[in-house]
């Protein structure tokens, strides 16, 4: 997909269109707890998009670092739904297959979507097990905690399950399709 098409797609979305009224005050970036980790904090990301650099925005780690704390949205003087726009960028990046390969959240979400499609509910141990296949070091770092949880009867050994997992699988086809792209 070419950049112009992606830009049009971005600006036709009612939430994203509001980026046009951004006054570049930087309140969002100043409020963001993960700005230091992002390759472009929210204000800068919006400046790039308005300059037509949608490709940079979609490849950026910024939306994946967004934890939906909604500080930016609460404080933005222009009432721009910053966090909602981050969701839109994630969906667009995944659909276009250009999410940053170096970021671990897409794998985490995919492990989550996979368990949801299989069981209808999420079981933390399943998500961790699946995610750990790709990121064994994170699992190792959490071993000590896992053992403590086990000792307190808090490690999910029995999976969380609905009576009709197939129904939930049918509701999450897109999530899982996108979950198996890479």
């Amino acid at each position, binding site marked *: 997909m070419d950049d112009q098409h992606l830009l049009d797609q971005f600006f036709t979305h009612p939430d994203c269109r509001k980026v046009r009224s951004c006054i570049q005050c930087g309140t969002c970036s100043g409020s963001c707890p993960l700005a230091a980790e992002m390759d472009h904090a929210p204000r800068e990301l919006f400046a790039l998009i308005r300059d037509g650099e949608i490709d940079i925005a979609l490849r950026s780690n910024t939306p994946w670092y967004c*934890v*939906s*704390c909604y500080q930016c949205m609460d404080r933005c003087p222009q009432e721009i739904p910053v966090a909602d726009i981050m969701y839109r960028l994630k969906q667009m990046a995944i659909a276009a297959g250009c999410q940053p390969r170096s970021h671990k959240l897409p794998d985490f979400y995919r492990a989550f979507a996979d368990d949801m499609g299989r069981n209808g509910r*999420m079981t933390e141990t399943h998500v961790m097990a699946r995610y750990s296949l790709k990121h064994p070091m*994170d699992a190792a770092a959490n071993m000590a905690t896992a053992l*403590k949880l086990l000792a307190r009867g808090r490690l999910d050994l029995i999976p969380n399950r609905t009576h009709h997992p197939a129904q939930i699988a049918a*509701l*999450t086809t897109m*999530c899982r399709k*996108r979950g198996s792209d890479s």
Partner: protein
Amino acid sequence: MTVYAFFPGCAYQSAAGYRESVDALNARLDIQLQELDDWNCCGATAAFSLDEPDGLALCGRLFALAQKEGFSRIVTVCNACYTTLLKARKRMEKDPQKLAAVAHTLADQGLELADSLPDVRHYLDVLVADVSDVLEKAAADNGDTAGAVAVYYGCQYTRPWISGPDAQRPRMLERLFTKIGIHAVDHSAGTLCCGASHAVPYADACGPMIRRIVREIRNKGGGIITTICPMCQFNLDAGQTDRQTDPLPVTYFTQIIGLALGIAPKDLGLNKLLIPLRTEKKKAS
């Protein structure tokens, strides 16, 4: 007895004594939470990050289940479930086409989604708005006490749903605590972010966020942290165990309220915390 439709969410079953303490309060306060039959995961931040229609359908199914049982409200105990359901409700109310699309998808599974979507509430709202008088009467003066409590609301209980000062510094739980004789400390870390789902994949980035919350609470005289969400509780509890020499115990608000009602610590699941909480008998005044 008041009956509420209950959506426990996936993290509830392994949460540190959340279920035990909620059950104990329900019994004491005559509240009935009726678990939605065959509930599914709400999709949390993952589904909405991957595909919005799927995210809406997961929440829509929960709304349909509640409607089927005749409920106009759903109670949750998790900030992420609360925000995900509210977000889906708002989207579908604003855009009837989205609602129609979800209703259509659910119809294929024999579920009916009516236009009037159920309201979404946190269990905290139930305690504050519906039973605070009962709570006040039930407060015991011979129970266990644990000291000065700092409330940590986390992000998604207030934002983006409440505007004004309460979005940053809510006070509803502190007010409730004061009414029933719990000492609540005043601090400014109540709605800072704990790192949420990033705490596992990006523990290094989230460490300073957790330490900042704990430091502020400790500086303001807090001896115990209390939370209203399984993810916040886990992040603050597990996030302190290897890094802090003198960590602060991280509880659920239902455990702290349970103590104030004279319920025994073992019946509140307090033994399941990673950082142990020490309680002592209140001195008769």
